[in-house]
Every structure is written in C-alpha cells, then in structure tokens.
C-alpha cells in the first residue's frame, strides 16, 4: 500500500517536472529557429534569394571609403553606404542613427534583408567596438574578411 502510494507520487512528480521542461522546450524550439540570424559576406549574399521581409540576415565587411551619404527626410536620418569584402560591393540603406563607432574604412555588420532592388535594407547596424582592432585585410579572402568583421561589435537599434 505504502509502496504503491510512493510509486504513484514519484510518477506524479516526474510527470509534472517533465511537463514543465517539455513546455519550455516547445517554446524555445519554436522561437529558436525563428530568431537565428545568419551571417554572410558580401560575396555570399549575391547568391542569396532576395526577400523584403521574413528572417533577417547579417552582412559584414568594411564600409567603403567615400561611399557614406547622410540625408534627412522629414526629420528622419537616412544612411546610404557600401559594405565590401575583397571582391564584392553591396549597397546598404539604413534609416536611423548609427552606433558610435560606425564610420568609413571600418568594419561593420548590418542586419536586415537583401532586397530585389539589389540593395541591403538594414534595420540594425553594428560597428566594431575596439578602435585599436586591426582592419580587415582587403587582399585576403572572403573568409578572412568574414572572420574579422564579425568580431567585437556593438549594437545599435
């Protein structure tokens, strides 16, 4: 009798623990995939299917010298610039205020969508954080640029 009770209690306990864990796992699994943001180099992005919404992606590279244009439209700040690796140049459009350390000839990561107009529409810019950080080797491979651009960033939304 006592033993039976104890076994039942154990099952109830294990069951409720399992239920909690399963509920959390369900929640986590559901939002995990949706919130994964993949990182690409400008060269890789060209092979991507363009899309204007849905899952965002990140592109990292160097902000090309002389490419940064600031404009204002109805009190909204707009930025247009080019992010590049050794081979490919990608035009980026962003509305809002960039982070502190964002400027030309520096590494930056942008998050958003590669659109059909062949412009990357960014809604987040991340600039590299440490100014003593070595610049991306421009003669290096795309992989090299990717390895370096992804590091040390600060986000600005």
């Amino acid at each position, binding site marked *: 009798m006592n033993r039976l009770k104890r076994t039942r209690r154990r099952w109830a306990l294990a069951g409720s623990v399992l239920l909690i864990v399963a509920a959390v796992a369900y929640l986590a699994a559901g939002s995990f995939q949706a919130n994964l*943001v993949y990182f690409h180099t400008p060269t890789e992005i060209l092979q991507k299917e363009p899309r204007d919404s849905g899952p965002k992606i990140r592109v990292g590279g160097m902000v090309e010298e002389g490419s940064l244009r600031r404009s204002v439209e109805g009190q909204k700040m707009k930025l247009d610039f080019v992010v590049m690796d050794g081979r490919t140049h990608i035009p980026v459009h962003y509305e809002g205020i960039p982070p502190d350390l964002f400027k030309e000839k520096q590494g930056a990561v942008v998050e958003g969508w590669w659109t059909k107009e062949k412009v990357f529409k960014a809604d987040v810019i991340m600039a590299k954080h440490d100014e003593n950080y070595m610049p991306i080797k421009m003669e290096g491979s795309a992989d090299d640029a990717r390895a370096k651009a992804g590091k040390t960033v600060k986000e600005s939304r």
Partner: protein
Amino acid sequence: MPHAERETRLFLEIGHFAAILALAFAFVGTASAFAGGPRNPAWVRAGSRAVWAVCALLTLSIASLVYAFLTNDFSVKYVAANSNRILPTFYKIAAVWGGHEGSLLFWVWLMSVFAAAAVARHWRTHSVSMPFLIGVQSAVMTGFLVLVLFLSSPFERLIPAPADGVDLNPLLQDPGMVLHPPFLYLGYVGFSVPFAFAMAALFSGRAGDEWVLATRRWTILAWFFLSVGIFFGARWAYYELGWGGYWAWDPVENASLMPWLAGTAFLHSTMIQEKRNLFRIWNVALVILTFALSILGTFLVRSGIVSSVHAFANDPGRGLTILILLAVLLVASFGTLIFRAERLRADVSLDSIVSRESAFLFNNVFFLTATFTVLVGTLYPLAAEAIMGTKVSVGAPYYNKVFVPLMLGMLVLMGVGPLIAWRRASISNLKRNFLAPALAGIGAGAGAAAVGMREIYPLMAVVIMVFVLGTIASDAYKSARSRARRDGVSLAGGLARIVRRNKRRYGGMVIHVGVLLMVLGMAGSGNYQTEKSLVMKPGDSFTIAGYAISFKEIRETRGPNWMAIEGVFEARNDGTLIAELRPQRRVYSRGGMPMTEAAIHSTLTRDLYVVIGDEVPGQGIAVKAYVNPLVQWIWAGGGVMALGTVIVMFQRRRYPVKEAA
C-alpha cells in the same frame, strides 16, 4: 636610465617573479594536499602554508602592477596598452583589471584570497575536509596561473618603451565599470569555496551534510557578489552605452547570468538538504555546475570568441587553455560524483507533491531550465561555427519568449515556497496561507484589466506580483502579531523581534520583495518603452509620450581627458519645465572615436532618456529619445535585494559543528 625609474621598473620584475613562485607554491599545495591526504597532518599543514604563500605572492604581484600603472611605466606592454599620462588616477587603478592580461591575474589573486580565507576559517573545525579543500583550490589556481604566466602575461615588456601609453578603453572609464568586473570575479571565485567543500565531501566520503552547513555563508557571499556584479553591469549598460536599455542578451551578459541562475538554484536547494536531508547528490551536482559555469563565463569573456561589447581581441590559445581547464574540472568532479554518489544517497524521500520540498524542487527545475535556455542560445553559435562553418547569432526575442513564462513560474513559487507546509500541505494550511493573497492578486488583475490593460503577460504579472506580495505581507504580519502578543510589545517591535530571531528567513523575504520590485521595473520598461529618433536643429522640438522636448542649443565642453559637443534640451509636461537634459558626444584625447553620454531624467514612474549622435552637415544633429517606464524600480529592487542579503549573512550558524577529527 635615471636611478628612480630603474627602481620602479625593478618592482614589476619582483612582481613577475612572485607570480612564478606563486605557481610553484600552488602546485606544491595541490600535490601535498592530495598526496599527503587525510593520513598525514604534516603534509596538510605544508599545503595550507602553500595556500598562504600563493596569496601573499600574488598580492605582491598585483601591487607591482598597480605601481607600474601609477608610475606610468610604459615599458610594460600591458600598461602602455591600457593607460596614459593623463588618465585619472582612479582609472589607472581600474585599468589593472581593464584588459585581458591584468584581469586574469586579478582573477587568480581574488581566488587566492578566498582560498586563504577559507583555510583560515575552517582549519580547526573541518580538518577532515581540509586536505581536499586545499588540494582543489590549489589545483584551480595552478591552472589559471599557467594561463596567466605562459599565455597572457601582464608582465611582458615593450622595448623600446613608448613615451606615452594608448588609453583605457573610453567605454570603461565610468565608475560603474570600475566596480562591475571585480564584483563579478568575486562572485565567480567565491563559488570555488562551496565547490571545493563539495569535492571534499565526495573524496573523503565522510563529511555527509556538513559541507552544506559549512559553506552556507560562502555561498550567500558569492551569490551576493555575483548579483552586485551583474547589477553594476546592467546599470553601466543603461547609463553608458546609450541605447536606452540595460540588458541585451549579449553572450557575455549571458555568461554572467548562467552561474547566477545555477547558483540561485543551489542556494535554495541546500536549504532542503539542511532541513530535510533531501537532494544530497543533486546539491553536489549543482555546485559543480555553478562553478563550471563561472569558469565558462571567464572563458567566454576572455577568449574573445564571442562577438560582444566585452571581447576585445581574439587569442585561440587562451580560450583553448580555459576550455581544457573546464573539461578537466567537469570530468574530474562529475567523475568523482558518479563513483561516490552511493555514499550520499538520502534515506528519506518526498512525501507529497503539495509540500515545501516539492516547491523547492520546482524552483530548481525552473532555474535550471532557464540556465539551459541561456546556455543553448549562447553556445549554439559557437557550435554552429565550429561544426558547420556558418556564422549565426541568436536574437534577443528567443530569450524573451522563453524567459517571461519561466520568470512568472518562478514568481509563483516565490509566493508559495516560503509558506507552504513541509512534507504534506493540508487543505486548511493552503487556505489559511494562500486564499487571501490569491484573491487579492485576482482582484488586482481584474482592476488592471478594467483600466485597459489587455496584454496577457503584463496582466499575469500583476496578478502574480500582488499574490506574492500578499503572501509575504500576511506572513510577516501574522508572525509579528503573535510575537508581539506573546512578548507584550507593539506590532513593529514584534516585527523587529522575528526578523532578529530568524534573519535568514526574513532576510530571504526582503530579497524576494527586492525581486518583485525589480520584476516590476523590467515588466514596465520591457513592455512599454517609447522611442523616437530624429534629426534636429537648435530651435526644433518634438513630443514623446506626452513630453514636449525642445532643442535649445549645441555647445562645446571639456573634461580632464576628453572634449565633447553637448546638446541642451528642455523637457516640458503641460507647459511646465520639468528638466534640462544635456546629452554629450565625447571625444577622448587619446582615442579618435566619439562616445555617447546619455542625459537621463528619472522619476519613480519613468526615465526620460536622450542621446545625441552624428551631425548631418547643414541638416542638424541626430537625436534619439526614449521614455522608459519604471526603470528606477529595477535599481531600487537591486538595493532591497542587497539589504536582504546582508540581513541573511548576519544569521549565525544554528547547528553544532559535527565534523570533529
């Protein structure tokens, strides 16, 4: 080279040599404690002296590094990279732990202080555990000293020495930042004491439950430091980074949160072992997990493998070494646990699912699920890159989505756990303790819905928070009243007496109230933040959440080692001036890039938060404004939690020391 300068330089060499000697002594401590074991007191005594020696030598080491910073000895590479002549003295000292190399030395130094303190405190009372305590702590120090001396030495020279150094990263030049890393590290290394005691219990197989009692205060102390460290980090992010928030689920923030979550679970579940002798194996596993996550935290921050505000360079060697240390730690400790677990098996079991024991069990389930959620999100990108070569990151919505329901569940338990009966709660017990608070909570929820609150999570938060507050208040009131009647004092006197008599319980209740305040602040700022970003010229104005903000002028200003442009804004509510806000954009003399300095006007209900950014030639300046509701409650809640922790720490040991040799 002038004579005086040669002497200052010599001191650092002495410090370097001291660190090398410390490594030797740490090794001696490990070897003598394990080899001598419990059978040979002379060896154990030698081990304890080695621990003292390591502490003394590392203190000398740190002192020599501080001295190098204060005397501007730029022939030291680390000093040249992290300081310069015009850096304020305060930050010169902070720069000791401002970079990779120094911070690791600082970590081991703190660890050695904890080790020495633990040996001193428990030498007489815990002679059975002592050899293992010394051995485990010395082993950890040996590992980290190898890392410091061979892979990340702050004593390296730069020849020829530059005339001036670079700078301490301007972002780190903030009083909050000065305190954030030391407290975090104190928390990390603090858990080494309970960890070492747990290992001692396993190795000796004799210590039984004694380690839990012996380490109660150590655990609370470590938890306190870790909490304070995280708290300062969040404040720093809010006041210094200028993005209007305090927590971004950055991998390095997660790195400090994981040991905190596991440590909190441990803190709660040891109480069950103390009172009811349950969860004995579980607690050992928890403390191993907590300390391992502390080391993982150090690894994530210091290896530079994660993209983050805190990771400043990449050195695979360092990361690999910490990873190896972590692997050794996990294999050794869990291995021992598996082989020795039989000796710790409890002879009692849970009586009912509706009991305080099971409330604590569910507390652990929630905290560990939370830990695991963060762990997956933090490590998945590393695994994806290592295995599949894709670079990927996990967005903040993932964490928020999982964490909000978990947090609500934990809050419910926070109300139920301290009041529900041990073993098996009867219906009358449940009614007596929970009926009124539950009704109050539901009433408050209905009220909130009536005034227009519609979102499900905020509504649930209101219900649960009022319920929890109700349980705490009614419990305190009932106990204080009966005490007051018995002793013939006033109600307030009764309250003071029950708190004094049971500091641990009521200190814990104070901590819980602090948590409630903090959750209130997080719920408010997380759900109801308003934001506006515009380009403005002096004379322009805008409104945000009912506040009219006008841009008066832009001017220049300067500090000891920076220059800045400063925007002057006036905030009005219904025409009355409520604040003048002056956000800055600083350029530090040594570093070219501008830094944002937010202007914040705080009240109990909301923060008005304004930052300025880039200038667009001819068009004006970029301005970003936020209204963050209830943020100040987060900081207030942190203060209340700290107060509660201090009350808890004053609780004396209430059980006799069992472990006599």
